[in-house]
Protein backbone atom coordinates (compact mmCIF):
# COMPACT_ATOMS: atom_id res chain seq x y z
CA UNK A 1 0.00 0.00 0.00
CA UNK A 2 1.44 3.33 -1.09
CA UNK A 3 1.03 6.07 1.46
CA UNK A 4 0.65 9.68 0.40
CA UNK A 5 1.10 12.86 2.39
CA UNK A 6 -1.07 14.82 -0.04
CA UNK A 7 -4.43 14.25 -1.67
CA UNK A 8 -3.74 16.73 -4.46
CA UNK A 9 -4.41 15.48 -8.01
CA UNK A 10 -1.31 16.04 -10.18
CA UNK A 11 -3.25 16.53 -13.40
CA UNK A 12 -5.44 19.20 -11.80
CA UNK A 13 -2.38 20.89 -10.37
CA UNK A 14 -0.46 21.02 -13.66
CA UNK A 15 -3.57 22.04 -15.61
CA UNK A 16 -3.99 24.95 -13.23
CA UNK A 17 -0.32 25.98 -13.59
CA UNK A 18 -0.58 26.03 -17.38
CA UNK A 19 -4.13 27.41 -17.69
CA UNK A 20 -2.70 30.86 -18.41
CA UNK A 21 0.32 30.71 -20.73
CA UNK A 22 1.12 34.37 -21.54
CA UNK A 23 4.38 33.39 -23.21
CA UNK A 24 5.50 30.77 -20.70
CA UNK A 25 8.12 28.38 -22.06
CA UNK A 26 7.79 24.92 -20.51
CA UNK A 27 10.28 22.06 -20.15
CA UNK A 28 8.88 18.79 -18.80
CA UNK A 29 10.79 15.96 -17.12
CA UNK A 30 10.44 12.39 -18.36
CA UNK A 31 7.52 10.29 -17.19
CA UNK A 32 4.45 11.71 -15.50
CA UNK A 33 5.35 15.44 -15.73
CA UNK A 34 5.57 15.09 -19.52
CA UNK A 35 2.17 13.34 -19.57
CA UNK A 36 0.67 15.90 -17.17
CA UNK A 37 1.73 18.85 -19.33
CA UNK A 38 0.51 17.14 -22.49
CA UNK A 39 -2.82 16.34 -20.85
CA UNK A 40 -3.17 20.01 -19.96
CA UNK A 41 -2.99 20.81 -23.68
CA UNK A 42 -0.26 20.35 -26.26
CA UNK A 43 1.57 23.61 -26.99
CA UNK A 44 4.40 24.67 -29.30
CA UNK A 45 6.09 26.26 -26.29
CA UNK A 46 6.38 22.87 -24.55
CA UNK A 47 9.58 20.83 -24.76
CA UNK A 48 8.85 17.29 -23.61
CA UNK A 49 11.54 14.93 -22.33
CA UNK A 50 11.27 11.17 -22.75
CA UNK A 51 14.72 10.44 -21.33
CA UNK A 52 17.93 12.19 -20.22
CA UNK A 53 16.90 11.87 -16.58
CA UNK A 54 18.17 14.75 -14.46
CA UNK A 55 18.21 17.30 -17.28
CA UNK A 56 14.91 19.20 -17.09
CA UNK A 57 15.93 21.97 -14.66
CA UNK A 58 19.26 22.54 -16.45
CA UNK A 59 17.66 22.71 -19.89
CA UNK A 60 15.53 25.35 -18.20
CA UNK A 61 18.68 27.19 -17.08
CA UNK A 62 20.24 27.19 -20.56
CA UNK A 63 16.96 28.37 -22.07
CA UNK A 64 16.40 31.06 -19.42
CA UNK A 65 19.88 32.44 -20.10
CA UNK A 66 19.26 32.45 -23.86
CA UNK A 67 15.78 34.02 -23.53
CA UNK A 68 16.05 36.46 -20.62
CA UNK A 69 12.76 38.18 -21.48
CA UNK A 70 10.65 35.01 -21.31
CA UNK A 71 9.59 33.09 -18.22
CA UNK A 72 10.88 29.51 -18.35
CA UNK A 73 9.19 26.82 -16.27
CA UNK A 74 10.75 23.40 -15.78
CA UNK A 75 8.12 20.96 -14.51
CA UNK A 76 9.55 17.69 -13.32
CA UNK A 77 9.18 14.91 -10.75
CA UNK A 78 10.92 14.21 -7.47
CA UNK A 79 12.85 11.25 -8.92
CA UNK A 80 14.12 13.31 -11.87
CA UNK A 81 15.13 16.27 -9.71
CA UNK A 82 16.84 14.01 -7.17
CA UNK A 83 19.10 12.75 -9.97
CA UNK A 84 20.09 16.36 -10.66
CA UNK A 85 20.47 17.75 -7.14
CA UNK A 86 23.80 19.32 -8.05
CA UNK A 87 22.02 21.17 -10.82
CA UNK A 88 20.13 23.19 -8.20
CA UNK A 89 23.50 24.48 -6.98
CA UNK A 90 24.50 25.36 -10.54
CA UNK A 91 21.21 27.16 -11.21
CA UNK A 92 21.46 29.18 -7.99
CA UNK A 93 24.81 30.69 -9.00
CA UNK A 94 23.35 32.21 -12.14
CA UNK A 95 20.01 32.67 -10.34
CA UNK A 96 17.99 33.90 -13.36
CA UNK A 97 14.82 35.69 -12.30
CA UNK A 98 12.97 34.26 -15.33
CA UNK A 99 13.45 30.62 -14.28
CA UNK A 100 11.00 28.61 -12.17
CA UNK A 101 11.59 24.97 -11.21
CA UNK A 102 8.44 23.08 -10.21
CA UNK A 103 8.69 19.56 -8.82
CA UNK A 104 5.49 17.52 -8.86
CA UNK A 105 6.46 15.51 -5.81
CA UNK A 106 4.56 12.27 -5.15
CA UNK A 107 7.32 10.85 -2.90
CA UNK A 108 7.76 7.94 -5.29
CA UNK A 109 9.25 6.73 -8.56
CA UNK A 110 5.84 6.48 -10.20
CA UNK A 111 6.89 5.25 -13.63
CA UNK A 112 8.76 2.19 -12.40
CA UNK A 113 6.42 0.62 -9.85
CA UNK A 114 5.92 3.27 -7.15
CA UNK A 115 9.10 2.64 -5.19
CA UNK A 116 9.49 5.22 -2.42
CA UNK A 117 11.90 8.03 -3.35
CA UNK A 118 14.19 10.10 -1.14
CA UNK A 119 11.44 12.69 -0.64
CA UNK A 120 9.24 9.81 0.54
CA UNK A 121 11.98 9.08 3.04
CA UNK A 122 11.81 12.66 4.28
CA UNK A 123 14.14 14.73 2.09
CA UNK A 124 12.78 18.25 1.58
CA UNK A 125 13.70 19.49 -1.91
CA UNK A 126 12.61 23.07 -1.20
CA UNK A 127 15.06 23.23 1.70
CA UNK A 128 17.80 21.98 -0.61
CA UNK A 129 16.94 24.66 -3.16
CA UNK A 130 16.86 27.31 -0.44
CA UNK A 131 20.23 26.18 0.85
CA UNK A 132 21.64 26.36 -2.69
CA UNK A 133 20.57 30.01 -2.88
CA UNK A 134 17.31 30.15 -4.84
CA UNK A 135 15.55 33.50 -4.41
CA UNK A 136 12.40 31.69 -3.29
CA UNK A 137 11.74 28.05 -2.43
CA UNK A 138 8.71 26.48 -0.80
CA UNK A 139 6.47 23.42 -0.73
CA UNK A 140 2.71 23.50 -1.27
CA UNK A 141 0.24 20.72 -0.52
CA UNK A 142 -3.18 21.93 -1.62
CA UNK A 143 -4.98 23.71 -4.45
CA UNK A 144 -4.70 27.08 -2.72
CA UNK A 145 -0.93 26.62 -2.77
CA UNK A 146 -1.03 25.66 -6.46
CA UNK A 147 -2.97 28.87 -7.14
CA UNK A 148 -0.16 30.82 -5.46
CA UNK A 149 2.45 29.08 -7.61
CA UNK A 150 0.38 29.72 -10.76
CA UNK A 151 0.22 33.44 -9.92
CA UNK A 152 3.96 33.48 -9.19
CA UNK A 153 4.64 32.36 -12.78
CA UNK A 154 3.36 35.74 -13.96
CA UNK A 155 4.91 37.87 -11.21
CA UNK A 156 8.36 39.47 -11.16
CA UNK A 157 11.06 37.79 -9.10
CA UNK A 158 14.49 38.67 -7.75
CA UNK A 159 16.03 35.35 -8.80
CA UNK A 160 15.34 31.73 -9.61
CA UNK A 161 12.37 30.18 -7.84
CA UNK A 162 11.66 26.61 -6.74
CA UNK A 163 8.29 25.13 -5.84
CA UNK A 164 7.60 21.57 -4.74
CA UNK A 165 3.96 20.56 -5.15
CA UNK A 166 3.11 17.52 -3.06
CA UNK A 167 0.62 15.31 -4.88
CA UNK A 168 -1.12 11.97 -4.46
CA UNK A 169 0.98 8.97 -5.50
CA UNK A 170 -0.87 7.57 -8.47
CA UNK A 171 -0.39 7.12 -12.21
CA UNK A 172 -3.23 8.71 -14.18
CA UNK A 173 -3.82 7.39 -17.73
CA UNK A 174 -0.82 8.34 -19.87
CA UNK A 175 -1.18 11.29 -22.23
CA UNK A 176 1.59 10.86 -24.76
CA UNK A 177 3.19 13.68 -26.76
CA UNK A 178 5.34 13.07 -29.85
CA UNK A 179 8.53 11.13 -29.12
CA UNK A 180 10.34 12.61 -32.12
CA UNK A 181 12.72 14.94 -30.31
CA UNK A 182 13.93 16.72 -33.47
CA UNK A 183 10.33 17.58 -34.32
CA UNK A 184 9.63 18.83 -30.80
CA UNK A 185 12.87 20.86 -30.82
CA UNK A 186 12.19 22.47 -34.18
CA UNK A 187 8.58 23.18 -33.23
CA UNK A 188 9.76 24.84 -30.02
CA UNK A 189 12.39 26.94 -31.84
CA UNK A 190 9.87 27.97 -34.50
CA UNK A 191 7.58 29.12 -31.68
CA UNK A 192 10.40 31.53 -30.71
CA UNK A 193 10.88 32.64 -34.30
CA UNK A 194 14.07 30.60 -34.73
CA UNK A 195 14.67 28.76 -37.96
CA UNK A 196 15.91 25.30 -38.75
CA UNK A 197 19.31 24.78 -40.33
Amino acid at each position, binding site marked *: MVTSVSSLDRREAVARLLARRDGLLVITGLGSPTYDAHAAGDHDGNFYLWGAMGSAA*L*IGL*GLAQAQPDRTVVAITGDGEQLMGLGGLATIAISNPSNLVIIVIDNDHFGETGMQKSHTGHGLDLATVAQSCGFAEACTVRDMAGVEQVARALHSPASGARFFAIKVRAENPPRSLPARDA*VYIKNRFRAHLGLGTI
Partner: protein
Amino acid sequence: MVRKTAARPAATDAPERLDHALLDAEWPEQLYRVLKAAQVRQVSYVPDAGHSALIRLFAADREVVSNVLTTEEEGIAIATGAWLGGSRSVLLLQSSGVGNCVNMLSLVTMTRTPLLMLVTMRGEWAEFNPWQVPMGLATAPVLTAMGIRVMRADTPRDLIETVESAAALAFEAEQQVAVLLSQRLLGRKKW
Protein backbone atom coordinates in the same frame (compact mmCIF):
# COMPACT_ATOMS: atom_id res chain seq x y z
CA MET B 1 60.05 28.56 -29.50
CA VAL B 2 58.73 26.63 -32.46
CA ARG B 3 57.31 23.28 -31.47
CA LYS B 4 58.64 20.38 -33.49
CA THR B 5 55.88 18.58 -35.30
CA ALA B 6 55.73 15.91 -37.94
CA ALA B 7 55.48 17.15 -41.51
CA ARG B 8 51.87 17.71 -42.45
CA PRO B 9 50.17 18.91 -45.62
CA ALA B 10 49.66 22.67 -45.78
CA ALA B 11 46.10 23.72 -45.06
CA THR B 12 44.82 25.09 -48.34
CA ASP B 13 41.79 26.80 -46.87
CA ALA B 14 43.44 28.49 -43.88
CA PRO B 15 42.15 32.08 -43.81
CA GLU B 16 45.52 33.44 -42.79
CA ARG B 17 48.95 32.19 -41.90
CA LEU B 18 49.30 31.52 -38.20
CA ASP B 19 52.39 32.61 -36.31
CA HIS B 20 53.40 29.32 -34.74
CA ALA B 21 55.74 30.74 -32.13
CA LEU B 22 53.07 33.16 -30.95
CA LEU B 23 50.43 30.44 -31.06
CA ASP B 24 52.44 28.15 -28.80
CA ALA B 25 52.33 30.78 -26.09
CA GLU B 26 48.89 32.20 -26.74
CA TRP B 27 46.65 29.40 -27.93
CA PRO B 28 44.03 30.01 -25.23
CA GLU B 29 43.61 33.59 -26.52
CA GLN B 30 43.38 32.31 -30.10
CA LEU B 31 40.85 29.72 -29.00
CA TYR B 32 38.81 32.43 -27.28
CA ARG B 33 38.80 34.48 -30.51
CA VAL B 34 37.71 31.47 -32.55
CA LEU B 35 34.81 30.77 -30.17
CA LYS B 36 33.80 34.43 -30.17
CA ALA B 37 33.88 34.45 -33.97
CA ALA B 38 31.61 31.39 -33.84
CA GLN B 39 29.17 33.53 -31.78
CA VAL B 40 29.34 31.45 -28.63
CA ARG B 41 27.21 33.13 -25.95
CA GLN B 42 27.13 30.57 -23.13
CA VAL B 43 30.01 28.62 -21.59
CA SER B 44 29.74 25.76 -19.09
CA TYR B 45 32.66 24.08 -17.39
CA VAL B 46 34.01 21.86 -14.71
CA PRO B 47 37.40 23.50 -14.22
CA ASP B 48 40.59 21.97 -15.53
CA ALA B 49 44.06 23.51 -15.42
CA GLY B 50 44.25 23.17 -19.21
CA HIS B 51 41.12 25.32 -19.58
CA SER B 52 41.97 27.90 -16.90
CA ALA B 53 43.03 30.73 -19.23
CA LEU B 54 39.95 30.26 -21.42
CA ILE B 55 37.69 30.20 -18.36
CA ARG B 56 39.22 33.50 -17.19
CA LEU B 57 38.76 35.11 -20.60
CA PHE B 58 35.08 34.13 -20.73
CA ALA B 59 34.48 35.19 -17.14
CA ALA B 60 35.66 38.69 -18.07
CA ASP B 61 33.42 38.80 -21.16
CA ARG B 62 30.11 40.53 -20.45
CA GLU B 63 28.58 39.17 -23.68
CA VAL B 64 29.03 35.60 -22.51
CA VAL B 65 27.27 33.79 -19.64
CA SER B 66 29.52 31.38 -17.74
CA ASN B 67 28.21 28.44 -15.71
CA VAL B 68 30.38 26.47 -13.32
CA LEU B 69 28.94 22.95 -13.02
CA THR B 70 28.89 20.36 -10.25
CA THR B 71 29.18 17.59 -12.84
CA GLU B 72 29.80 17.66 -16.58
CA GLU B 73 26.48 16.16 -17.65
CA GLU B 74 24.77 19.36 -16.51
CA GLY B 75 26.54 21.11 -19.37
CA ILE B 76 24.91 18.85 -21.96
CA ALA B 77 21.49 19.89 -20.66
CA ILE B 78 22.43 23.58 -20.55
CA ALA B 79 23.70 23.42 -24.14
CA THR B 80 20.35 21.93 -25.18
CA GLY B 81 18.39 24.66 -23.43
CA ALA B 82 20.65 27.31 -24.93
CA TRP B 83 20.02 26.05 -28.47
CA LEU B 84 16.27 25.78 -27.84
CA GLY B 85 16.48 29.48 -27.04
CA GLY B 86 18.71 30.37 -29.98
CA SER B 87 22.12 30.58 -28.26
CA ARG B 88 25.37 28.87 -29.18
CA SER B 89 27.39 27.43 -26.34
CA VAL B 90 30.53 25.49 -25.54
CA LEU B 91 31.25 22.92 -22.81
CA LEU B 92 34.74 22.76 -21.28
CA LEU B 93 35.69 19.60 -19.43
CA GLN B 94 38.44 17.12 -18.69
CA SER B 95 38.58 13.58 -20.06
CA SER B 96 37.46 12.12 -16.71
CA GLY B 97 34.26 14.16 -17.01
CA VAL B 98 33.29 12.54 -20.29
CA GLY B 99 32.41 9.44 -18.29
CA ASN B 100 29.93 11.49 -16.28
CA CYS B 101 28.07 12.52 -19.45
CA VAL B 102 27.22 9.19 -21.05
CA ASN B 103 23.43 8.89 -20.76
CA MET B 104 22.97 12.67 -20.99
CA LEU B 105 24.57 12.62 -24.44
CA SER B 106 21.37 10.95 -25.67
CA LEU B 107 19.71 14.34 -25.18
CA VAL B 108 21.77 16.04 -27.90
CA THR B 109 21.75 13.12 -30.31
CA MET B 110 17.98 12.58 -29.96
CA THR B 111 17.20 16.28 -30.39
CA ARG B 112 20.02 16.81 -32.93
CA THR B 113 21.23 19.75 -30.90
CA PRO B 114 24.59 21.33 -31.71
CA LEU B 115 27.17 20.32 -29.12
CA LEU B 116 30.72 21.62 -28.96
CA MET B 117 32.79 20.03 -26.18
CA LEU B 118 36.44 20.87 -25.62
CA VAL B 119 37.98 18.00 -23.68
CA THR B 120 41.41 18.34 -22.08
CA MET B 121 43.05 14.92 -22.01
CA ARG B 122 44.66 13.22 -19.04
CA GLY B 123 46.07 9.75 -18.67
CA GLU B 124 47.71 9.54 -22.07
CA TRP B 125 51.08 11.38 -22.10
CA ALA B 126 53.65 11.49 -19.29
CA GLU B 127 50.86 10.90 -16.79
CA PHE B 128 51.87 10.74 -13.12
CA ASN B 129 48.45 9.79 -11.72
CA PRO B 130 47.32 6.28 -12.67
CA TRP B 131 43.72 7.10 -11.71
CA GLN B 132 43.50 9.29 -14.82
CA VAL B 133 44.39 6.42 -17.13
CA PRO B 134 41.12 4.41 -17.37
CA MET B 135 38.98 7.34 -18.48
CA GLY B 136 41.82 8.66 -20.63
CA LEU B 137 41.73 5.38 -22.53
CA ALA B 138 37.94 5.35 -22.69
CA THR B 139 37.27 8.98 -23.64
CA ALA B 140 37.17 8.65 -27.45
CA PRO B 141 35.49 5.19 -27.49
CA VAL B 142 32.78 6.34 -25.05
CA LEU B 143 32.02 9.46 -27.08
CA THR B 144 32.00 7.48 -30.32
CA ALA B 145 29.73 4.84 -28.80
CA MET B 146 27.22 7.58 -27.95
CA GLY B 147 27.26 8.96 -31.49
CA ILE B 148 29.48 11.98 -30.82
CA ARG B 149 32.02 12.96 -33.49
CA VAL B 150 35.54 12.98 -32.03
CA MET B 151 38.25 15.30 -33.33
CA ARG B 152 41.70 15.62 -31.85
CA ALA B 153 44.40 18.29 -31.69
CA ASP B 154 48.03 17.56 -30.87
CA THR B 155 49.52 21.00 -31.59
CA PRO B 156 48.29 24.58 -31.06
CA ARG B 157 47.90 25.06 -34.80
CA ASP B 158 45.86 21.87 -35.07
CA LEU B 159 43.75 23.03 -32.18
CA ILE B 160 42.73 26.37 -33.66
CA GLU B 161 41.88 24.91 -37.06
CA THR B 162 40.11 21.93 -35.52
CA VAL B 163 37.95 24.04 -33.22
CA GLU B 164 37.02 26.35 -36.12
CA SER B 165 35.93 23.30 -38.07
CA ALA B 166 34.16 21.71 -35.09
CA ALA B 167 32.21 24.92 -34.39
CA ALA B 168 31.03 25.04 -38.00
CA LEU B 169 30.02 21.38 -37.87
CA ALA B 170 28.17 21.86 -34.61
CA PHE B 171 26.33 25.11 -35.21
CA GLU B 172 25.83 25.04 -38.96
CA ALA B 173 25.23 21.30 -39.45
CA GLU B 174 23.68 20.57 -36.00
CA GLN B 175 26.33 17.99 -35.20
CA GLN B 176 27.63 16.85 -31.82
CA VAL B 177 31.38 17.28 -31.69
CA ALA B 178 34.06 16.72 -29.06
CA VAL B 179 37.53 18.15 -29.64
CA LEU B 180 40.17 16.36 -27.58
CA LEU B 181 43.09 18.57 -26.54
CA SER B 182 45.94 16.10 -26.22
CA GLN B 183 47.93 15.95 -23.02
CA ARG B 184 51.06 16.45 -25.11
CA LEU B 185 49.69 19.81 -26.23
CA LEU B 186 48.78 20.82 -22.69
CA GLY B 187 52.13 19.82 -21.24
CA ARG B 188 53.24 17.75 -18.30
CA LYS B 189 51.53 18.54 -15.00
CA LYS B 190 54.00 19.54 -12.27
CA TRP B 191 53.63 17.60 -9.01
